[in-house]
């Protein structure tokens, strides 16, 4: 049963992610992006990381994509015409795909992944309290760094969008 659900949600997530990339209509792409996030949220649910799943929906599907749509609608982006691939782009993407392929094959064929025990360890983010505890002890540094990055991004946006008065 659980396996079946995993495959269904994984398939939905992957299919929608592909659709995001291949949609020519930006609104379609944004809608598929929501579906991708929802699919990922359900995968988190399967891992019993409810908090993460809900936050995924709340932040990404509920706020970020709304802003995407907002911008798409305000700018009135028309359907993209087929762009011709530059040779450099083509070469770069082939190399990128090759690296990805090697990575995936390498990980799946290594012994590490097969060595997992049958009993699942309890996820650190399963209950809210554990999640908060881990965030402020074990993962304190990454959290601070992320927060700092977000602060920088925010200040950058404010500086960029502020209209400079010339007089």
């Amino acid at each position, binding site marked *: 049963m659980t396996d079946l659900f995993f495959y269904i949600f994984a398939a939905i997530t992957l299919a929608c992610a592909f659709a995001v990339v291949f949609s020519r209509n930006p609104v379609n792409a944004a809608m598929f992006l*929501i579906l991708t996030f929802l699919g990922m949220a359900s995968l988190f649910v399967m891992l019993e990381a409810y*908090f993460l799943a*809900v936050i995924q929906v709340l932040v990404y599907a509920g706020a970020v994509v709304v802003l995407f749509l907002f911008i798409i609608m305000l700018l009135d982006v028309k359907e993209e015409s087929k762009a011709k691939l530059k040779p450099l782009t083509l070469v770069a993407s082939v190399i990128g795909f090759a690296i990805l392929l090697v990575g995936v094959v390498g990980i799946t064929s290594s012994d590490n992944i097969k060595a997992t025990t049958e009993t699942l360890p309890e996820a650190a983010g399963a209950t809210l309290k554990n999640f908060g505890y881990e965030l402020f002890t074990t993962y304190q540094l990454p959290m601070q760094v992320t927060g700092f990055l977000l602060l920088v991004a925010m200040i950058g946006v404010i500086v960029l969008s502020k209209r400079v008065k010339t007089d």
Partner: protein
Amino acid sequence: MELSDIAIKSIYAVIVVSVLMGFCSYAVLAERKISSWIQGRVGPNRTSLPFISSIPYIGRFLTRLGVFQPIADGAKFLFKEDITPAHVNKLYFTLAPILSLIPALTTVVVVPFGYYENAAGEVVTLVLTDLNVAILFLFAVSSLGVYGIVLAGWSSNSKYPFLGGIRASAQMISYELAMGISVLPVFMWLNAPGTAGTLSLVDVVNSQGGALWYAMWMPGSFLIFVVCIFAETNRLPFDMAESETELVSGFHTEYSSFKFGLFFVGEYAHMLVGSAIVAILFLGGWHPLPFMTWADFGVHGLLAGVLSVGTLIGKLCGFMFFFMWIRWTLPRFRYDQVMKLGWQMLLPASIANLVLYTFIIYFLERP
């Protein structure tokens, strides 16, 4: 999970959703009646059913009260001609009303509506699922409701709906922040040191039993949350998405018949769930009085179930009335005022409130 469990849960879900739909249709009636009373009118008082309406006195009284009006309204929405304008994006035009209704109905899943004591004397909470992250689930799912409005505005391919959709998207995001921060003090108090962490709504209600309700000693949170609920449900004075005096009818200008009906029901379902959340978070849920529970009144067993559900529904109806009452008291904000209120007043106020209650809770709980 067994198949029979799934079947039972499904049946419960169907029952809850149909009760919610029934409440929606009567909320529409209540809205029309209360509007008319405040404005010195009579309101719907003609629709009558055969047999029932011809009962002397009672039948006439019910007809004058408009009790049969929702049936006529529903039939009208079902059978009117469904016009799809030629210039719309058909897929999203059809999808939008569904997307605005589904999140509103999904949120009921985590809303607890009462408890009863079974034969063994155990307290059983009446809730579809007691999720550990219930309040976040609620915020997350209800934040998806904005897509219905935004897509309706965009796919209508017409200026007024478009403006309505744009306004709605900006407004929803702005007020979600203040709403999320304003409930934090409640959960800070709930998650006292040494207890298992919880964001469950059932625990919120239980913590208010035999104690002060949160609205009484956290009036700041309550006020900010209520304002944000108004903004999130797109009700006056925040109905930027509709604002019929400026945008014809806002995002649903191009909609008619059943699709419009879905938007309509979605709005009221959203309001109902919002009222239930306010009652649960701040007004003591199914507890009849501050410091008192039904058990203190000596009510046990199934009767407690009936009374607790009744109490919650009573509070819910009271808050629904407040929604309608506010509607005819405050004029609509201008768009820049909405943004200013959200970002420059409510957000700082909610953060200040959070800091204040952090200290209060710290001193209250200091051993």
